[in-house]
């Protein structure tokens, strides 16, 4: 059992590890170790196409993650705190469907929507950051909803109930009581939405117009023809940023859990 586990584990991590190691390889060839070098990092920062794409991707990811967190939290709230409303089952269905929908279908359908809307009402005038953001909100709000929903189902509801009994209006109860409790879940939802957006190639390719290339689109066009060392350097930087983000999120949740367990005892 342990052998299989270790094997599976190595299987998950060795490729990432090798990517990091080879980003410092002076040689252009993977098979040759040409000595330690940071030349690919220098090359990376001089590549304007990559810098522009990275800036666009960060902008898209931050905006879409924020909206996805708002909508996803509202959806989670609707499903856990609002008594049965009309179309609830249907709502559950279309909320979860983007989680398993193949990206090519989501991407194609959104593009055709944008094109048709443009024909009918003249909006959106052109496809770019805006349309990619809309597409990303749509598929990542489901992830936020799942995370927030599970937190809302497991949290202790006695505080909410007490506030309601004392005449608190639902909106105030949500802002004053529920929101602080679910905020770590919302944060991890935001981070997940941010990462998913930063990583998406297929949906962004469909939703974007000519000229606006996100980072994954640039990476894809570069690596389609084979291994390029500056992408190794880029990958290492992304892994570094993500690790720091996860460490911070983990630390916040750890502190939150600790204070929660102190309250309970």
């Amino acid at each position: 059992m342990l052998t299989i586990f270790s094997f599976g584990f190595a299987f998950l991590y060795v490729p990432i590890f090798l990517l990091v190691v080879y980003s410092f390889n002076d040689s252009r060839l993977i098979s040759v170790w040409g000595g330690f070098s940071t030349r690919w990092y220098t090359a990376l920062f001089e590549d304007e196409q990559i810098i522009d794409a990275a800036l666009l991707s960060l902008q898209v990811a931050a905006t879409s993650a924020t909206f996805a967190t708002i909508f996803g939290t509202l959806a989670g709230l609707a499903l856990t705190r609002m008594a049965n409303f009309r179309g609830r089952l249907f709502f559950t269905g279309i909320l979860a469907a983007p989680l398993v929908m193949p990206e090519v279908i989501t991407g194609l359908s959104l593009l055709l929507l944008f094109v048709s809307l443009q024909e009918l009402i003249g909006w959106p005038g052109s496809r770019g950051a805006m349309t990619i953001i809309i597409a990303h909100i749509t598929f990542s709000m489901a992830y936020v909803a799942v995370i927030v929903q599970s937190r809302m189902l497991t949290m202790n509801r006695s505080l909410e109930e007490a506030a309601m009994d004392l005449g608190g209006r639902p909106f105030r109860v949500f802002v004053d009581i529920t929101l602080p409790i679910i905020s770590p879940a919302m944060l991890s939802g935001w981070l997940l939405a941010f990462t998913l957006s930063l990583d998406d190639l297929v949906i962004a390719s469909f939703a974007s117009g000519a000229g606006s290339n996100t980072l994954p689109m640039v990476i894809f066009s570069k690596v389609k023809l084979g291994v390029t060392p500056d992408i190794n350097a880029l990958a290492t930087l992304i892994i570094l940023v993500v690790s720091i983000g996860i460490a911070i999120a983990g630390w916040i949740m750890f502190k939150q859990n600790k204070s929660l367990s102190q309250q309970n005892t």
Partner: protein
Amino acid sequence: MANPRQALGDLLWRRIVIVLPYLWLVLFFLVPFAIVFKISFSDPIVAQPPFTPLFDQSQNFLNWFQGSLNNYLFLLEDNLYWVSYLRSIKVAFISTIFCLLLGYPMAYYIAQSPPTKRNVLLMLIILPFWTSFLLRVYAWMGILSTNGIINSMFLWTGIIDEPIQMLYTNFAVYLGIVYTYLPFMILPLYANLERLDLNLHDAAADLGGKPLQVFRDITLPVSLPGIIAGSLLVFIPAMGEFVIPALLGGLDSLMIGRTLYDEFFVNRDWPLASAVATILLLILVLPMVFFQRTQAKSVEENS
């Protein structure tokens, strides 16, 4: 009791909570499918956008659905498409089996380790999922290519005399899919095995059950919902996968996701791409509904 103004405020809040995400999903998820379906019946033309108009005002309502089945007939006639569909089903199915074979022991190992260790192990399974999917697939290009790490090592040790072609083969596609979707298999399996009552195991063993027997008669049936959820979470997205066959696969590993992508971006035949998407959706609708059902059930059980 609430005064009328407060009551109005409560109602408004309730409306916002439900209607805002609902409306968003209807507009940007549901309506687009209707459009895909509609366009799959139109004919391609050389124009911008490259398909015959959706809404032709000159026609009355009966003719509104000015569809043609041309695209679907074409899909049937040309081998390329149904070979792509079949290959996608095959690749997704075999990859799911491998994910299960590798993922089940891993999930089991995590579930039966001490609780303090459990969260760390689980975190380590989730971690790769947070790093870029595209870059993790790309990492395999450097490992598998003819002058890549595996071939260099084998050549150096003298196991082989000339490099083996691994990149741009079906093998690489299977490897890539199992690699990227393994966490999706492990997580639902773990969630299920974690609740497994180990007393049942001890009881069965005490009564003389052989390990294999205990596994078959007790562990396996209990973890069946996890197996189903995990398998569907791997099978459904793998079926429409584009990036992995595009980067790791060869010319003979054309899957339907890539066919659709090429039809759209290379051939610019939007109506045909829509028809390809519609059929893919029809194939996947059954497993998707099945997945939703099992998910809804497990949410109910937890709450």
